[in-house]
């Protein structure tokens, strides 16, 4: 089974540097396979645990991404990533 989440990145610098690092760390905390693609600037689907890959799809402020989780804790994974993104990665 796979779960999917489409979500828009509001963080000012997009999915870059610190937010991206937090994203991949959070993804790595789960056993499910996490994949991400940029829907706004169409990109290939990449490994959500790889900071390099996440950076390579160039997610900027206002872009929408599709996160796919596949594994035992896929729901929890999506929930946690959603929370992280919605709180703007802890930014003000």
């Amino acid at each position, binding site marked *: 089974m796979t779960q999917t989440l489409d979500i828009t990145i509001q963080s000012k610098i997009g999915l870059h540097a*610190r937010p991206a690092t937090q994203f991949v760390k959070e993804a790595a905390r789960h056993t499910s396979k996490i994949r991400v693609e940029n829907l706004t600037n169409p990109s290939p689907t990449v490994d959500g645990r790889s900071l390099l890959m996440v950076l390579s799809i160039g997610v900027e402020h206002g872009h929408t991404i599709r996160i796919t989780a596949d594994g035992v804790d896929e729901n929890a994974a999506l929930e946690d990533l959603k929370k992280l993104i919605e709180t703007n990665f802890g930014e003000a």
Partner: protein
Amino acid sequence: MKRTINSTSRAEISLKGIGAADGIAIGPIFVYFPLKFTFLDRVPGMVDQEMSLFIDARASATRELEFLKEGLDSCVDEGIAAIFDAHMTFVNDPALSDGVQGRLNTGMTAEKALIETIDEVAAMLEGMNNPLFAARGVDIRDVGRRILCNLLGVKDTSLESLSCPSIIAAYDLTPSDTVRLRPGMIVGFCTAAGGLTSHTSILARTLGIPAVVGIGQETLDLVQQADKLAINGATGDVVVNPTSDRISHFLSLLDANSKRHEMLKVQALEHAQTADGRRVDVSANIVDLDSAEEAVRRGAQGVGLLRTEFLYLGNTRPPSEDEQIQVYGSIFSVFGDRPVIVRTLDIGGDKPPSFLDFPTEQNPFLGWRGIRVCLDELGLFKTQLRAILRASANYHAMIMFPMISGVEELRRCKQVLEEVKTELRAEGKDFSEGIPVGIMVEVPAAVAVADLLAEECDFLSLGTNDLTQYALAVDRTNERVASLYQPLHPSILRLVKATIDAGHSKGKWVGMCGEMAGMKKAIPILLGLGLDEFSMAPLLISEVKWLMRQLTETRLKDITERALSFKTVREVDDYLGEILSEINNSAGQTNEA
């Protein structure tokens, strides 16, 4: 070759070197050895073995990053800690290990697989449109370099790869070592070799970064990559792994320094004058628009030296008249109606531009350089003069000819200038007709005929850097004899006095744009000799103005008489050093560690 990182805490060590650039710095050390990666093509082992090598190197790199991050103070920018986080994440990124594994499967060595993977990943990032993302290519190359160093068992080398504000520890630093350093990442310098005039010292003073040099190679060997250092650039004290008490002490010195700097910054905007109210001009030596703006911020009355070489060096063709007008104009406008002295092109065989055919010279400093080049390359010379004249139409610019050695040369320059003015008049172009014309006094012969030269120009400016070299027959970049370069040598003081007297006897003002003008020890005697204008690096202006304000005319007269009476450099230097200490102490300033 395995490397282990020492994880036990290390004892505090106190060292002493030469204080080369004032200021306090506390921070992690970055030990720098210039090194090129040349490794032999070795036969790769089994894929598993090669992968193990990579995994071990990766683990070491991670530990290094952890150490570096731990070494950061809480008072350091959070952003820096975030960079380390990112690097640590990169190091362990699946994309890296996948890439390496894939290449190893084709039968490569670990180092080749790593280099190719890094290149591919970095290129991918660098190819992205958004510059924010593209810039991460630098980070991944940095990380790749760190892993590679661990793989090959060598210490990392590149100053570009500094990712956290550090104190650079090195045997010595050459201009090519520092050409790409990121000033924000350097908080101090500490070298084994070097003296007050070595590249490190000059660079540090220019950037306003504390530096201690000459601590000796054995001492440098005591220091390790993960150590923390506190240095006092005024006294030459260096403490390795300072205890928290020592750190507090350094921090309070740092605090006192910054308070003083704030006060000085404000006072620097006032006109320079002695304690009795005699006004002199304190101007800036600048090289481009950025330094022009900095000069104004730091209280420069004007520009005593605008170097123009930057327009010519590093380019494949000389700058056009219009390009020059644009550049000069933008710099002039920063100063408004304040004087800007433009020095015409001053280049030589030691650093030739690519578009001129320079002969191979045994002795470039005594060869085809300075005004000689311009008088032979009239096209180049006239274009520059045209640009300066036209750009200065509504400003207060002046022209200064370098390396003038006699009246004939000066007359020839003025003749070319007149020809250019005639051309411009005929073309109906606006330019400043009465633009003042002066010369740099740096060839000793010019000092001998300074009165004759002063009759035929509007001002004299002492280029003491070259004057000292020519007069003492010393190449300051030659390590063997560099210590003989002494601006406070009695002969130099006499040459300066003679030039000032000659200029004044003909009713012309005399300035100085060599380093001596910004040398605190020299200020009292220069004031006493009647120097009218002091032009220096913008960073030095506030301290110099402060110092001038402490000196009365009586005091200046006494100091000058005494300093001129000495027969040796040592006596002059010691005496002027004492005077400076007296002044600092009586004003309640102290730099002692």
